[in-house]
């Protein structure tokens, strides 16, 4: 964000918790305001502190990043009422996209393929049993108001459905704003395909290609790439056209990602809309040459998409991103601490986005993502080659990182062949 603002000549204010006092964003922003202690609830999730900081520094806009308050419709509303531009969709759109089965219904109306499932939230066990019988087991129960695996249960036969439905509803009620649960066909070995969307505030929408994010562990992405090695061109074209219409009809503005599941036949099924910029957006930036965060800021400033994109979107080559996490590559336990040695890789086709620096401390309070390593090449083979080179040159001492794990992924024959689904990691580790 600071990079995009510097490019645009916009001064920046970084808000930070005490744990991030010595972080790079605090150093490189034009101003920095401490908003609270390390605990997120009292700093990064504390709306009054953030708005207060915005007011005393007289900012024009807030970029919420990803995570924390980025998809909090209430926060977007407070910004609007306070006269501060929230860089993202409107509060109403954020709220609508947050109700999963409503988003499903809208997509279905516009011809975007969805998985067979219930019509909205399940109102009774009978309805659940009927729906499951109709679409065929196995089915998955999902929380309407949240994700991340909570309120989710896979049901293999009717006998287990009533019990699992109760469990899912209880878990959803405890974790999210509602206990509503809906039901979908369960695909056992799916690929995770997501489309990057960009829309201005004048009703113009563009789809900037897809990313394949199937390499995951416990619903956490480890590696993303574009284009997907498995997506057939005709499926891409068809879904892109329908999606463009649906997103326009929703009144969506700014950046977002639409998640799909690809079944064994290569068909796509809509899952949900993430109404924010995502971690893996650099993958799309690499293949399109478009600075997405800069585009977000310009959209929020009222500019038109045609001016921002400067012509039809061109896709060039192949890009891969590895999420370098501060964790033990075998046990996955988090590894916060001081970085005693650091060498960032470079060379042709390599980009590193990181908040790590020599002698810097990775605090234990937040996400373990330490760096995003992106490789771009003229084709997938070259991108893989460059990524391997970069991983070899990436030195981080003092903490554990997932670099050895990424090296292993890049060398797996199935990965190189493009044959993988979301169970890829599970096959050789828990």
């Amino acid at each position, binding site marked *: 964000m600071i990079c995009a603002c510097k490019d645009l000549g916009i*001064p920046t204010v970084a808000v930070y918790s*005490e744990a991030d006092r*010595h972080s790079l964003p605090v150093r490189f922003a*034009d*101003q920095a*305001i*401490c*908003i*609270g*202690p390390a605990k997120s609830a009292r*700093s990064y999730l504390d709306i*009054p*502190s953030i*708005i*207060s*900081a915005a*007011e*005393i*520094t*007289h900012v024009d806009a807030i970029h919420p990043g990803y995570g924390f308050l980025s998809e909090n419709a209430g926060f977007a509303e407070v910004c609007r009422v*306070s006269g501060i531009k929230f860089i993202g969709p409107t509060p109403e759109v954020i709220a609508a996209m947050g109700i999963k089965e409503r988003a499903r219904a809208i997509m279905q109306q516009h011809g975007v393929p969805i998985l067979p499932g219930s019509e909205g939230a399940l109102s009774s066990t009978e309805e659940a049993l009927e729906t499951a019988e109709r679409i065929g087991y196995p089915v998955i129960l999902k929380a309407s108001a949240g994700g991340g695996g909570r309120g989710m249960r896979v049901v293999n036969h009717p006998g287990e459905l009533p019990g699992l439905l109760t469990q899912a509803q209880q878990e959803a009620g405890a974790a999210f704003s509602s206990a509503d649960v809906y039901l979908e066909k369960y695909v056992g070995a799916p690929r995770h395909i997501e489309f990057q969307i960009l829309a201005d505030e004048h009703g113009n929408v563009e789809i900037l290609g897809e990313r394949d994010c199937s390499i995951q562990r416990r619903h956490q992405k480890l590696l993303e790439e574009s284009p997907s090695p498995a997506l057939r061109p005709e499926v891409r074209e068809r879904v892109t056209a329908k999606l463009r219409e649906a997103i326009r009809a929703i009144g969506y503005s700014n950046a977002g990602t639409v998640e799909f599941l690809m079944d064994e036949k290569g068909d796509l099924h809509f899952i949900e809309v993430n109404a924010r910029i995502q971690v893996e957006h650099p993958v799309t930036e690499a293949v399109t040459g478009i600075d997405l965060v800069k585009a977000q800021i310009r959209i929020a400033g009222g500019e038109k998409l045609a001016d921002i994109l400067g012509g039809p979107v061109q896709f060039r080559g192949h890009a891969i991103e590895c999420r370098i996490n501060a964790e033990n590559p075998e046990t996955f336990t988090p590894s916060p601490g*001081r970085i005693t040695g650091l060498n960032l890789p470079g060379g042709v086709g390599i980009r590193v986005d990181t908040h790590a620096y020599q002698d810097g*401390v990775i605090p234990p309070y937040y996400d373990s993502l330490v760096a995003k390593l992106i490789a771009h090449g003229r084709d997938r083979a070259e991108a893989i080659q460059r990524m391997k080179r970069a991983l070899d040159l990436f030195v981080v001492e003092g903490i554990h990182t997932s670099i050895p794990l990424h090296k292993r992924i890049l060398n797996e024959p199935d990965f190189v062949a493009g044959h993988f689904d979301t169970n890829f990691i599970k096959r050789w580790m828990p």
Partner: protein
Amino acid sequence: MTNEEIRELIQIVTDTGVAELEVQRGDNRVRIRRSFGLSGSDEGRVNEILVPGPAGASPAPAAAPALKAETPPAQSEPELIYAKSPIVGTFYEAASPDTPPFVRIGEHVTPGKILCIIESMKLMNEIEADVAGIIESKLVQNGQPVEYGEALFGIRPV
């Protein structure tokens, strides 16, 4: 700002052990920050001098004070306690422009005594002392924006 003036400011930072000094004169602004290792050692070096270019390039927040000094507790008299802001907002020394300040230098305060108001999102928050002692210093100015953890008053406990 001349090189001589900048050299003088560096000297002040080094001599007094002040952690961070920011001076604005007209369109010129200098910030000098002493770096402290995370081990807590207060043997720092003056290592960062930021002199933004001409006025057009540097942001000029309307409420930036002319001089803001932060004294790290380790460097000051051992017994002094700092009342710190628990929120982000704007510091006011009195309940209104027409009323006298809540506390004055030299005044004795007890826990619960209102020291100041910090305004946040149009709400006036009364900040109370949590120790008994004498107000020895006031570190912020009326109307100044303050961040979480910013030292407001130095209180010598009795």
